[in-house]
């Protein structure tokens, strides 16, 4: 039982990270109707930037500067490479974001250098043990941060003028424009938010361990998360993140027991299934619900 609960705590921690990245994807999707494949690069750059800054200005200062810095970077990218493409086919834009991803990721990798770097977080690999259940500090921190960010996003979309404008634009862009909403600002803010969220997720994904230049792969797990939650559902992204996180941690932990060839109906597999669990869960859910758990079903008019 303690092993099970330990896995659930790990899942909540990594699920918070997935949820943060997924929120970024959903915010961009809601504003422009595209998926930005540049999120992995922003995630890696966030962690790298914080690791460069934290020795001089401390972790918290570096975190603040890093998140804002990547948000500004995302804003710039949107202005230069995405804005001219508004209205073009979404897949052309998607491939452009992949090109951007390659560029930004290479530059971030260059700053990473040869030796592993740390983000310099105060949690490390420290943990509490409560009745045999191991609770890592960094997972609690990630969960708390995710909760604060979600609350802030909720208030932002609910009460600020630009938040309201974004919601209006996502419902009906033309109607919103007619009401005086500057759609350009909406695009810019959504990219900045997504960039900042990715950077934040990157820092938490890198807590307690050296940043490797393959850290960005974490962001790809957010893709099944947003499918699971529904592409246009912020709440779905959060819940999807936790579901995927916990499922992945449980599969990783129990893989050896389940797939050793001793359990009937299950094959013998030496390679841990944890890394592909998110995609398997996605397939299973989509067989039942083609628009995810909370996505809006398209209404068809001929």
């Amino acid at each position, binding site marked *: 039982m303690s092993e099970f609960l330990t896995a659930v705590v790990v899942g909540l921690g990594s699920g918070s990270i997935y949820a943060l990245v997924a929120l970024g994807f959903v915010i961009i999707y809601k504003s422009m109707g595209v998926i930005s494949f540049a999120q992995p690069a922003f995630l890696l750059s966030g962690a790298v930037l914080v690791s460069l800054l934290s020795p001089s200005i401390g972790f918290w200062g570096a975190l603040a500067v890093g998140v804002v810095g990547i948000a500004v970077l995302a804003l710039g990218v949107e202005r230069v490479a995405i804005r001219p*493409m508004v209205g073009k086919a979404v897949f052309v834009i998607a491939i452009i974001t992949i090109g951007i991803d*390659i560029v930004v990721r290479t530059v971030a990798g260059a700053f990473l250098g040869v030796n592993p770097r740390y983000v310099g977080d105060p949690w490390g690999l420290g943990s509490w043990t409560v009745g045999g259940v191991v609770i890592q500090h960094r997972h609690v921190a990630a969960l708390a941060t995710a909760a604060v960010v979600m609350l802030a996003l909720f208030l932002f979309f609910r009460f600020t003028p630009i938040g309201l404008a974004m919601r209006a634009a996502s419902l009906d862009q033309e109607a919103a424009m007619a009401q005086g909403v500057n759609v350009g600002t909406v695009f810019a803010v959504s990219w900045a938010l997504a960039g900042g969220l990715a950077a934040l997720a990157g820092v938490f994904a890198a807590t307690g361990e050296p940043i490797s230049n393959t850290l960005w792969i974490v962001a790809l797990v957010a893709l099944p998360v947003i499918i699971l939650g529904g592409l246009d559902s912020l709440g779905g992204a959060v819940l999807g993140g936790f579901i995927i996180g916990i499922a992945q941690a449980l599969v990783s932990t129990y893989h050896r027991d389940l797939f050793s060839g001793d359990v009937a109906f299950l094959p013998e597999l030496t*390679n841990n299934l944890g890394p592909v669990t998110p995609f398997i869960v*996605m*397939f299973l859910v*989509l067989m039942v619900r083609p628009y995810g758990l909370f996505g809006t079903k398209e209404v068809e008019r001929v």
Partner: protein
Amino acid sequence: MSTRTILQSRPELYTGYGREMGLFNTRAKWIGVLALVAVAAALPMLVADDLLRILGTGMVLAIGAIGLNLVTGYAGQISLGHAFFVGVGAYASSAVAGDPEGRTLGFGVTFMPAWILAGGLAAALCGVIVAPLATRLRGLYLAIVTLGLVFIGTYIFNAWSDLTGGPGVGREAARPILLGDDLTRDSSYTSEQKLYWLFLVLLLVFALLARNLVRSQVGRAFAAVRDRDVAAGVMGVNPSRYKLIAFTVSSFYAGVCGSLLYVANRHFGAEQFGLLLSIQFVAMVLIGGAATISGSIMGAMLIAALPRISSELTNYATFISTSPVEHPNVFETEAVMYGALIVAFLLFEPRGLFGLWHRIRTYWKSFPFSY
């Protein structure tokens, strides 16, 4: 003189739907293709082997890109799972042709058409299996789900080491033996020349087949599904049926591409069929131009040559360090250039190389008037 003869005496005027949908619907196209093929066939006598290797890879990739264009450009179903089908084709063909005594699975059928077809059919079978789920989804949902296919595929390729040799190890690719001559060995012609000609012939065959398919009833049904699947359904074109056909044919092309892709290397590892390869195929289709066969070929050639192009461009920037540990160095610049060129192409010509060609053609057609 009847109207009909008057019409016929005017060149390049379609006098019937059949003619417009012809394989080569203008004479210029027919002549142009002939000239291009002639030039392409003569290239191996003129160009160095390392470039031939790149061009040959480009032609194999073009077969796969045509496949993706059938499902994406013509039938409107975006798939990021193409690399998975390419992988299936690569493994099926190398297993069929493989040495039965070898370390990895092999059935010893060395007859080339047999293993190429086996690669295509195995991938097509996987396409049929996946299609029922895929046909329920649209747009970005479909894209991400097919992306999941790539991740699960990579897991299977890594785990099934009896077939694939496992990660970092790999297995032998099929050997192309034609009339007793192993095309991967130099004889009176170098292996690059021989493989180039082989790939050129296969590309022509598969490009013509695809072009024939898209001008047939099936191709028009694809377009109807792409443009509005509900409307297509109302008109009696069953969307699920045609999506299934599109997926199957596209997977077949991917499988054929996979069966040939590593022939020149003779060996391939299990990590090759990841996200990057899928993305490259989508880039080929979009950079070439969606829903054009010739665009797919141009796109594939460009993506195959892009590492070399970015490397040559970087050579001009002599102020950049060549030391591997200084930043920025030429290697990073090359990688950045690769991404930047993709962005630049799509920013300035969203309709792809085909669109560029189209503009040039229209410009010369109406020269000196710019409209």
